[in-house]
């Protein structure tokens, strides 16, 4: 059973789990209904997104009901301690339900872990692309403004920005932002 409020990622994880020979009995976005879902499907393993507030709900079942979800960390002492750290990094937490052998669970976690990670790096990539584009845009704007104000050529404006960056030990886009803020008639570079 998978609890994840990110539908795209959930779908990816579910497909890979099926592909690796595991039955995914239920995929739910949040734990509203988590207790009911567990009763209905009696899963062996619950994979839950760390960003889900429902981990406290799951853990309470573990304690109150003797048959219940135990965090997998309790069984991984034999694994390298790094494993838990990796799972937390990827944003995933795993609980065992019933008497399943923890050794059988590792492959399941591995599949989910790989997918969560892939998703994360995709998102990071997207973010860094966005930042790069924004940086380039700001630099171009600052150059334009310098050219207009100081009657410089593009070449000269570029050199001036570079020199400012070196002298102030700042990144080029940061210098460009300062230039925009100082020279722009509106008192700041407008965004978008």
């Amino acid at each position, binding site marked *: 059973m998978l609890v994840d409020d990110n539908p795209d990622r959930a779908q990816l994880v579910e497909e890979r789990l099926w592909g690796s020979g595991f039955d995914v009995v239920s995929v739910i976005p949040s734990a*509203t209904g988590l*207790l009911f879902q567990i009763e209905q499907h009696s899963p062996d393993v619950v994979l839950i997104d*760390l*960003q*889900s*507030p*429902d*981990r*406290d*709900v*799951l*853990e*309470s079942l*573990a*304690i*109150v009901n003797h048959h219940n979800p135990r*965090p997998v*960390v*309790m069984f991984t002492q034999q694994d390298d301690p790094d494993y*838990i*750290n990796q799972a*937390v*990094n990827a944003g995933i*937490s795993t609980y065992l339900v019933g008497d399943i052998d923890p050794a059988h669970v590792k492959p399941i976690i591995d599949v989910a872990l790989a997918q969560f990670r892939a998703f994360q790096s995709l998102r990071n990539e997207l973010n860094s692309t966005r930042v790069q584009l924004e940086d380039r845009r700001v630099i171009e704007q600052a150059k334009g403004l310098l050219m207009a104000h100081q009657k410089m050529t593009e070449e000269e404006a570029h050199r001036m920005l570079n020199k400012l960056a070196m002298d102030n030990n700042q990144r080029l886009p940061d210098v460009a932002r300062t230039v925009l803020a100082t020279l722009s008639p509106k008192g700041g570079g407008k965004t978008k």
Partner: protein
Amino acid sequence: MTSHRQLPPPEKERLKLGFMRLTDSAPLVLAKEAGLYQRYGLEVDLVREVSWANLRDKLVVGHLDAAQLLAPLPMMTSHGAGGMRANLLTGLSLSLNGNAVTLSWALWEKLSGGRHRDPVTMARALKAHIADRSDNPLITLATVHLFSMHTLQLRMWLAAGGLDPDHDLRIIVLPPEQMCDSLARGIIDGFCVGEPWNTVAVQQGIGAIAATGYEIWNNAPEKILAVTETWHNHHPASHLRLRLALMEACQLLRDPEQKLAVAELLSQPHYLDLPVKNLLPSLTGQLVIARNIPPLTLPDFHVFSRYQAGFPWRSQAQWMVRHSAALLGKPIDEASCRALVQQAYRPDLYREAARYLDLPTPDRDSKPEGIHRGTWEFQPGIEMGPDLLLGGEGDITVD
């Protein structure tokens, strides 16, 4: 005020401090916004988390340096109950009180007749109501975590009305943010939660407050500042500086003006992301328990520094371990209980910080409970608050 030159330099300056969307995270937020962390040479990033399990796990794996946690959690985590096992410790309690029991509007109205009643009368009325409807499905109440003062207070309140919390009704765990929605949809009949979620239910008209945590146990422990034992051993100076910044924030929160200001700060999107009107009633001690009823004046609804609020009492920690262990169905023997408390609750660390601020501190690590109706003197210069609890006097043994 302390001279920082006397303080040892921090081993680590940039710290990640975890918190939850609750009104009593006020000291953590105020310390940031008032520049108190900076004053102690720290740069603190506040990290909002969605579950106590996340706070605990991220502390344990080192993704957080410190976190606001439920008072019983350090011992129960050291004990290995319910999740990752690791030695956690606290040298500073962040707040007393702050919770309440809210029932659905219909149930509250039926039990109270639409008037403000004392908590025991309400609990007895609930017992009578449950006896009347023996064929109906069980009443379900929610709490925020098994090892929390919320669970213990809810059970004390039920027991005071003659109810057996294990058989007469059902107690489940839900995240604080889901309480109101679950109540509105009839999934639960009531809950015990920290503010602002009781006030949110009252303001939405879906519930009313049947008992405040203060009424159940005057000045009960609530949130603490937790770190792992390993982290503390590697960063004693950073930990000391963090406690000092937070102690100063707690002191600022005595001032009613600061409480108004902190409500504005807390309401911001990156903190609680809720309207100020949800936060003011409990912070200002003007609590509205039900629509159409004038607010009650409860100046001690949240206590951040009065009555030695920052002191981690080992007697209270022992009480919490005993009662939390009883919920596990596996009692912890006295020797282990004592060992857990010695390791997790560190009054010596509180005293260390208090010396820098020239604050007087209690000489002993234990205090009586269930005896004092008003303020009293623990020792010369140490004023304590009332400590009555439902269920009568002498309920807590002190050693």
